[in-house]
């Protein structure tokens, strides 16, 4: 009996191919034992234990080892060699076309490409974006952790080429009806949006859709664009692009308050752009934003209302959010049923801008809160995992997402946090958002509804009744079916608001009521 073997350096085959080859080799008459494996240390040891010989090979090598009669061994190795060198290695015939692996390749394949979405780790993103810009493409950078110097260099270069860099850290855009990143299914229409905040843009576009109007383009700039260092290069470009776009009749600008000189530059450009502009600089007094042809809004939903009014040829009105009589009654009822210990709001958000807006609305209502991302005047939470007094947190912030998916994609941690808040005897209101659309979890409330159910039952057993107030950001055309999500939340006893601002207003109203009880 002889023992023969052959090895193939750096040859990778999948397990089915290897087992197929093994079986065919073993079927050669006169073969007693055969093995075709990758030469990992463990596999090599197993070969030795099986009496198939000792090998000095590298783990990336493929080993064929056989025992049997001399002739059979030769025949078997020949068979293996044929099978392994054949296309597909004994497995299925491969018909996969060569994958496009660079921006240049994509451009060669179809020279009409004029847009690149870059979503690679931050260290490499700027280099890829620059390649796309040099090929004449507009760029959306989904990647974050890109140094501000690189951002500035990219945007300055893009500006000389009359191209736009959306991002870095641009999570949401809708370009010519194509949703990119976290975006909702929005009707096409006359309103163009330029947003420095992803969820802010989602809220405004969703509301525009719900009001029966539509969006021409929603362009993102990334969160740093309106800093003094970058100077709003992308927002200015987006604004001018929409001003020149024949489909766009009204423009909406969405941002947290920009650096002062940048705000001035953006508003000047808006004033001269020839189309009516609604500007929501969350947290800034809308009167300081308003000027000829530019209408300042105080919160996101209001910006959408005003933009739709303008698109319909009406005068935009800055209507305050009112708590309806029905809501007022519910607020009083739920507040009256609470235990004396229940005083605080716990806002648990997946959307950063929703967290920001909720803090602003609570602060105006006399309820400053702690946060991991505090708005001006609010205090920083010492331990982000532990709420104190009034706490409104953004669970999509870096400290919660290191090495984990964003809570819009995987809400597990958010659900756990909500259970913890309900278990706290001082919690009066749990306020939260659910963001639908492309990119978001296919079933964002599966865990939430059961979490609310068990947490509520436990609180009730301890004599407490917690108010759950939620907002679902999405349209009925989104893949998750907004109507079904809202119905499920309502059946779980959640008060579901029609905008993030309304949810926050309800929450603040409950807290104000509670102040009357606990004084």
């Amino acid at each position: 009996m002889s023992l023969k073997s052959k090895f193939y350096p750096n040859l990778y085959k999948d397990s089915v191919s290897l087992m197929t080859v093994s079986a065919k080799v073993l079927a050669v008459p006169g073969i007693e034992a055969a093995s075709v494996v990758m030469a990992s240390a463990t596999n090599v040891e197993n070969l030795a234990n099986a009496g198939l010989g000792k090998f000095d090979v590298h783990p990336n090598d493929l080993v064929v080892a056989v025992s049997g009669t001399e002739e059979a061994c030769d025949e078997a190795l020949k068979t293996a060699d044929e099978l392994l060198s054949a296309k597909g290695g004994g497995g299925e015939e491969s018909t996969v076309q060569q994958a496009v692996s660079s921006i240049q390749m994509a451009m060669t394949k179809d020279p009409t490409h004029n847009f690149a979405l870059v979503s690679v780790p931050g260290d490499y993103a700027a280099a890829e974006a620059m390649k796309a810009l040099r090929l004449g493409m507009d760029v959306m950078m989904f990647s974050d952790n890109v140094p501000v110097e690189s951002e500035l260099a990219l945007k300055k270069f893009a500006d000389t080429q009359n191209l736009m860099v959306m991002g870095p850290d641009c999570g949401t855009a809708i370009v010519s009806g194509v949703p990119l990143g976290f975006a909702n299914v929005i009707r096409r229409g006359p309103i163009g949006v330029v947003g420095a905040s992803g969820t802010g843009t989602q809220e405004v576009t969703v509301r525009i859709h719900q009001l029966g109007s539509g969006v021409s383009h929603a362009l993102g700039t990334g969160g740093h664009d309106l800093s003094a260092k970058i100077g709003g290069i992308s927002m200015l470009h987006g604004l001018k692009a929409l001003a020149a776009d024949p489909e766009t009749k009204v423009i909406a600008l969405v941002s947290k308050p920009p650096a002062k000189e940048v705000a001035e530059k953006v508003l000047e450009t808006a004033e001269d752009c020839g189309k009516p502009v609604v500007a929501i600089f969350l947290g800034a007094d809308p009167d300081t934003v308003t000027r000829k042809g530019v209408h300042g809004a105080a919160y996101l939903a209001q910006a959408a209302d005003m933009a739709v009014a303008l698109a319909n040829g009406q005068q935009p009105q800055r209507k305050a959010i009112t708590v309806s009589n029905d809501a007022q009654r519910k607020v009083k009822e739920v507040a009256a049923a609470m235990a004396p210990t229940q005083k605080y709001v716990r806002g648990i958000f997946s959307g950063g801008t929703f967290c920001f807006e909720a803090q602003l609305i609570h602060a105006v209502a006399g309820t400053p809160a702690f946060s991991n991302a505090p708005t001006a005047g609010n205090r920083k939470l010492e331990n982000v995992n532990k709420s104190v007094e009034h706490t409104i947190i953004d669970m999509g912030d870096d400290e919660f997402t290191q090495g984990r998916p964003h809570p819009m994609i995987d809400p597990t941690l958010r659900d756990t946090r909500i259970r913890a808040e309900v278990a706290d005897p001082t919690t009066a209101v749990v306020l939260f958002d659910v963001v639908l659309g492309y990119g978001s979890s296919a079933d964002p409330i599966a865990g939430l509804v059961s979490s609310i159910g068990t947490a509520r039952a436990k609180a009730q057993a301890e004599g407490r009744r917690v108010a759950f107030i939620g907002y679902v950001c999405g349209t009925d055309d989104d893949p998750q079916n907004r109507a079904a999500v809202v119905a499920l939340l309502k059946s779980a006893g959640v008060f579901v608001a029609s905008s993030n601002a309304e949810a926050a207003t309800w929450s603040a109203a409950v807290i104000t009521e509670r102040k009357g009880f606990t004084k």
Partner: protein
Amino acid sequence: MKSAMYAPATLGRVLSKVVGCGPGATPSGDDVLVGILAVLHSPCSGDAGARDAALLRSALLSLLATTTDVSAHLLRQAASGLFGSDLHELVRAVVAENHLGELDDKLRRVIKTGATSGADMCEGLLAFAPCYFNQQHERVAA
């Protein structure tokens, strides 16, 4: 593997038999480990999962040179808590106790990964899920 998790002294010895074991460019033993790591890294495995993931990671790193480069890379990613989206979705579906149709769908997607890699990952996931996820459920319920 399971009993070795509770006896760190023997973990390295057991792992050396698993890493690189079996057929494929990513040997089956490695794929099973990826499935196990997906359970340990799930937030639903709580502190016990995080502790054991760290334990497994430190025992694994010195063994990576003994398996194929492709597989070593996969294991290195898994040891840092990075998994393919299909596997991640499956873990979520198991945790959420979704209805069977959905679980079935996610399971099929994972099984389709590679030739046998997906099925091997499921082996690891399903073998370890009951130990870690149940513990956590009880703790939440308690």
